[in-house]
């Protein structure tokens, strides 16, 4: 997507004024990577991983609480520690400062600061017109966001829980995804629709939905899922700057993850997957919370002598088939670990995409671990069994590598 890179390039010149001390270095760093990318937009090479300089970073912990390893590989400044929801807020706040057209709308985002505190402090700072509390009608405030976007604003629409956005499905599918196309490109819809989804801790079936499986088919939208404070902030900023409608999936259980992120400004690529742990034996594709279950399983696997390559796919639509493909060509075995239901989830689409494109490189059929096709039960034990757990992942890898 050539235009996206160009826009990020343009953004660096604007960001110069925000952080004058450190931006020079990061500017040149980013520029270098962009020059590589612009020459051929379709080949996403390792140069891109240099955005923010994270190419060598490995997360060896299930839940990223150890900030030291992260600090070492980022740019020379030590950075600051944040929780994931604060990282989202930082990204949002920076974009709102940078561009007066960015606004937030959703239920309880204003004075209350958002149910997960992602918008805390923004209403006093930017005013309650820019951080808008809406009545309870998801289809309508999503529609409002779409109308505002068509007439020049860049709204960030928050669904209190992703499941509530099912009410907004009509607006998202029929209008958000379509109007740029059906208007012949005359009206663009640069909205970001975000919210927490996924299985939490006994939130009940209605509040434990995985909307990415329902939305993935809608043409015209992009979907990304964040999993660490670092990529949360970067993806939030990228999503806001994108002229396409982007749905940013957060996870209810990841909001309190702690990590040290760079002080200088950085924006991530929306269509790029993240190499979490390079390896040789098997490619494990995952996203969002399952990343941590996979990393936990990876520890066990390493002890048992396996060398898994873990990729956080991050971009759910479109898939980063370049990174994924390179990995498949290396390891020849694929395990997909997702939280979606078995039927029609992201894993199902990813399986089809990999089979279609990299059939010749596979030594074994793709294994996909997903949740069962049941509404998420409330009882804690049952809920735990519905989500893929590390022992299952270990067992699947062992079987795959026989």
């Amino acid at each position, binding site marked *: 997507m050539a235009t996206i890179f160009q826009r990020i390039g343009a953004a660096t010149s604007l960001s110069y004024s925000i952080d004058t001390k450190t931006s020079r270095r990061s500017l040149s760093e980013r520029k270098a990577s962009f020059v590589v990318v612009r020459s051929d937009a379709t080949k996403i090479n390792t140069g891109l991983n240099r955005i923010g300089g994270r190419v060598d970073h490995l997360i060896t912990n299930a839940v990223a609480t150890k900030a030291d390893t992260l600090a070492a590989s980022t740019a020379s400044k030590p950075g600051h520690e944040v929780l994931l929801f604060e990282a989202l807020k930082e990204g949002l706040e920076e974009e709102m400062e940078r561009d007066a057209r960015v606004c937030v709308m959703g239920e309880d985002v204003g004075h209350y600061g958002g149910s997960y505190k992602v918008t805390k402090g923004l209403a006093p700072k930017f005013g309650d017109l820019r951080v808008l509390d809406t009545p309870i009608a998801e289809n309508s405030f999503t529609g409002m966001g779409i109308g505002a976007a068509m*007439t020049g604003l860049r709204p960030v629409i928050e669904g209190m829980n992703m499941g509530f956005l099912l009410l907004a499905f009509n607006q998202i599918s029929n*209008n958000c995804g379509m109007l740029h196309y059906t208007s012949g490109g005359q009206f663009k819809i640069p909205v970001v629709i975000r919210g927490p989804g996924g299985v939490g801790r006994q939130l009940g079936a209605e509040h434990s939905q995985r909307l990415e499986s329902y939305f993935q088919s809608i043409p015209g939208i992009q979907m990304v899922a964040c999993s660490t404070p670092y990529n949360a902030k970067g993806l939030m900023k990228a999503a806001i700057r994108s002229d396409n409608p982007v749905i940013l999936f957060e996870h209810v259980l990841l909001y309190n993850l702690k990590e040290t992120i760079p002080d200088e400004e950085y924006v991530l690529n929306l269509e790029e997957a993240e190499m979490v742990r390079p390896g040789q034996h098997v490619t494990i594709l995952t996203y969002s919370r399952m990343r941590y279950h996979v990393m936990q399983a990876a520890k066990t696997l390493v002890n048992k002598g396996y060398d898994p390559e873990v990729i956080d796919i991050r971009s759910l639509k479109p898939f980063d088939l370049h990174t994924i493909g390179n990995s498949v060509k290396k390891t020849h075995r694929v395990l997909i670990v997702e939280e979606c239901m078995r039927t029609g989830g992201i894993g199902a689409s990813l399986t089809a995409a990999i089979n279609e494109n990299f059939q010749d490189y596979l030594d074994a059929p793709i294994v996909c671990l997903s949740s069962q096709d049941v509404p998420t039960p409330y009882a804690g034990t049952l809920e735990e069994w519905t989500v893929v757990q590390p022992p299952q992942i270990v067992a699947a890898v062992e079987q795959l590598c026989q």
Partner: protein
Amino acid sequence: MASSCLSKSKNFIYNLKFKLYLLNRTSAVTNPLFHPHLRHTISSPSSSPVRKHASYSRVNGFDRWFEPAFVGRRSHSTTSVSSDVSQLPVEPPSQQVLDFPGGKVKFTQKLIFTSNSTEERVHCYRVLDDNGQPFTDAESLEISKELAVKMYTNMVTLELMDTIFYESQRQGRISFYATTTGEEAINIASAAALNDNDFVFPQYREPGVLLWRGFSLQEFANQLFGNKYEYGKGRQMPVHYGSRKHNYITVASTVATQIPHAVGAAYSLKMEKQDSCVITYFGDGGTSTADFHAAMNFAAVMEVPVIFFCRNNGWAISTPVHEQFRSDGVVVKGKAYGVPSIRIDGNDALAIYNAVHEARKMAIKEQTPVLIEALTYRAGHHTTSDDSTRYRSIDEIEKWRGDQNPIKRFRKWIESRGWWNAVAESEYRGSVRKQVAQAIQVAERIEKPPVADMFSDVYDAPPRNLNEQEVFVRKTVKKHRQDYPSDVPL
């Protein structure tokens, strides 16, 4: 209208009074940093007590807009406080009144339900009578000959456009069409009262607004034929016009989804402090949708400059209004949401012009939504896929095409002013007919959009999977050229 119209200065003084009042009544509220965020039970993280108990014992009709006194936020709106409350009570509340979140409420000891209907329906604003003669006491603006003739000729063009395009669908030259028959006055007169930079969010029966703003007959025809010159690049059905340069948002087939869009656009105008408003059109059927209700509610709460224009034309395909809602039409719903509203004669061009003109002024000056219900009649079929004689009598249709016909009524008026005559009429009609026919001929012959347009604009730049799919389509078409239409360029 009155309730939402306290001026900002009055608001400010009220603020100060309230602050002083609270300082005197510290015993009454447990938290001096009081967020009168009354309607919501969720409290701001910084304030501690359960607000339900602390708040409404003393606060009358205060709502969130008073927070600037405490939190330093922008106060940008007015309140809906009645005049009683400007005298702040210093004695315990009267037994007859409840200080409730949202305003004072008087008690009654009578067990009476409000009726589901009123004896008399809301009156309908009208300037011209059935014979096109203005009532002597009609409240109306003076409009110039130039404007009147322009309005009339546009209505005639719209009528002829509809007739000829409809026929061309019957002849198989275009695939689909929807007429505006009977609603020409709504289309043209409302557009005439707006500025060109007011955003328009149409349903699908308002091409006249585009016509007024300068969309040419050729541009209309291009869209109907889906050729490569049409702005939608051949991606939408006929009559789904859209034009950025005319501030007319592309029509989407989904009913009433444009209403919340309009509120969002009005919100963006309010954010950017523009001196323009937004108008959105919808039919009686559209008012049943969830989008309509939530959008009205939002617009009222957010105080944004949007005109909700309901074309109550009696029919939603085959559903008559008494099967659509049981309220007194749509105008009463405005009151339910706190939106100033009016019912007008939708076949009276002058009434429409006046109402929209005034609504626009109101919307911008007072930053308020306005609801206009225009009573009219859908004299044509729903679309070319419909035969309305199957569910309504031909007599009824004929009656509305008769004296109530908006074009006929307006013509009588301008002729009585000496601004028009039969000769001008036949000349004009002849000329327009020719132009429309020619536009059709030209549009028909133009090439269709290329295959590349099937894949562009899905995103700002096509991603890899779409590029792959495009390559595949091209290969397939090239290989089996005879199985694919020949007028679509690769």
